[in-house]
């Protein structure tokens, strides 16, 4: 079977590039085919790349606290553009201030993200979860 395909990028006007490079290196090493769009990626750029590369998942990073506004509507747009089975993960410093993580997770899940991660998450665990999610999507 071909390696699962992930589109990576930092959404919105966010220029934090270090974490993005770490994700690229880690997931490539872990056996995924990574399409890395880098920083300052718009919703449409994520979706264009996912369509062309037939991606299984999109990983959206957001580090600068504007994640809510930037990610709003991504799931609907994906559906509109025919990506009806795409897995959406989001992670980083998603909102400004001291909102409890559970609250943040609830909000992003309500927006259609399958999983929501803190900046401190263990990437090996994320890879495991993705394999699991891909497996259950097949059925």
């Amino acid at each position, binding site marked *: 079977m071909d390696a699962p395909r992930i589109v990576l990028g930092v959404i919105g*006007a*966010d220029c934090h590039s270090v974490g993005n490079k770490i994700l690229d290196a880690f997931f490539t090493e872990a056996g995924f085919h990574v399409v890395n769009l880098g920083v*300052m990626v718009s919703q449409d750029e994520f979706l264009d790349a996912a369509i062309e590369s037939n991606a299984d998942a999109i990983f959206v990073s957001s580090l600068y606290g504007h994640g809510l506004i930037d990610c709003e509507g991504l799931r609907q747009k994906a559906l509109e553009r025919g990506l009806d089975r795409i897995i959406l993960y989001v992670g980083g410093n998603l909102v400004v201030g001291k909102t409890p993580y559970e609250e943040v997770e609830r909000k992003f899940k309500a927006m259609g993200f399958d999983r929501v991660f803190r900046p401190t998450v263990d990437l090996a665990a994320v890879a495991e979860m993705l394999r699991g999610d891909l497996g259950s999507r097949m059925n």
Partner: protein
Amino acid sequence: MAAKLLLSVDIGSTYTKGGLFAVEGEELSLVAREVLPTTVDDLARVFAEVREAVLAGRTGAVPPADVPVYWSSSARGGLKIAAVGLTPDLTLSVARLAATSAGGKVVRAFSYELSAEDLAELRSVEPDIVLFTGGTDGGNSRVVLHNAARLAELASPAVILYAGNRKVRDQVAGILRGREVATAANVMPEVGTIDIEPARDVVRRVFLERIVDGKGLSSVVAAAGREPLPTPLAVFELVRTIAERVPGWEDFALIDMGGATTDFYSHTKSFHGGDAVILRGLVEPTLKRTVEGDLGLRVSAEALVRSEGAFLESRLRAAGLDPAALQAYAADVSHRTGYLPEDERGRGFDRLLAAACVRAASLRHAGLLQRVFTPQGGFLVQRGKDLRHVKRLIGSGGFLAGSTDPSLLLEACAPGSDDPDTRHLVPEAPACYADAQYLIPLLGNLAADFPDAAARAAVAGLRPLTPHSHQRG
């Protein structure tokens, strides 16, 4: 030892140009040239006439029939390519780039699944080639296979060139069996990676092997004893050859403005980086051609007045002229392809239309740099190609070839935007030249066999344009 003689001919849609060159070692020099109106219904006739006029009495001991002939053609609509891609900003945009870089003109472009209506439209524009792309290698195959099945039903003699997702290439070829099909490596093997050279190569081959006949060029092939190049491809290759072989010409651009289209060629690195500059979108190639079908002085004059109306109007107002008069002029000359104005008023209108063509072609070819303010501070975001390092700019085609001062070509450096945070990446202050003897396409034909000599002769044949230097006498 006597110099070897070469004849080069370019059959354009309006004029056919011929040049006799003497080649001695690494030097090419022009012996004679001739321009005649193209006889569109019989291209072999104008070819023979130009050949005779150029060679007459000039070949010495060599029988005229023994002078090797190199030639190009853009007659009968040039090379018409329809582009099919998946998403408009990725594979379709790369397909357009590949088509124009191969010397073609994109007559229609389609993204996503082709519908029955798209197919009818595709047939109606009568493309020579359908450049069929979509998906990265190993990427999307669903839409690609859908489009292959659609294209299998296309009632058109067009050659279908598949340059999409490599994983389904054999399957696509299978679906299209029985049609004229060619394949090339994927134009976008990975998101953001452009690989247009293989597709360009196949387009050139397809043009030679299968299209020449349909353009009424086979009789010329028989007379010339050689296959032609599409004119823009000859120019494209000459631009590459000059940049690679003439010192000081690594970064330059060429504008070829005609009655129907304006072509812009650039050879310069697309993106120069820098800490606070972020590139979005595709990294464009160092050598790039764009062709604008609505920018031209005759056939396209009315389209030009429509698409560049705001610019033309502001210039006319500044000069105290009536925009309606320009509109009437454009309507009049759009049906008179060979018309040359006899009075100052007409010449003024032509200059103005030419300024609009040069300016718009440059703005469309060049990318954009925008200042964006983010929570981490100000950044510059670049999209498209940076032409600011272009040091030299050549004007070619009848009107620009006749330039005697650089003001018209320098319209290519127009800022294009009043917004202080948006900058068009047009050339900044290039030295300007006129292809005064209109040798560019003729030498383009010779670039493959005599690269050094053709490149040097092209540069040597240019007229440098300096401000206020009017013609002597």
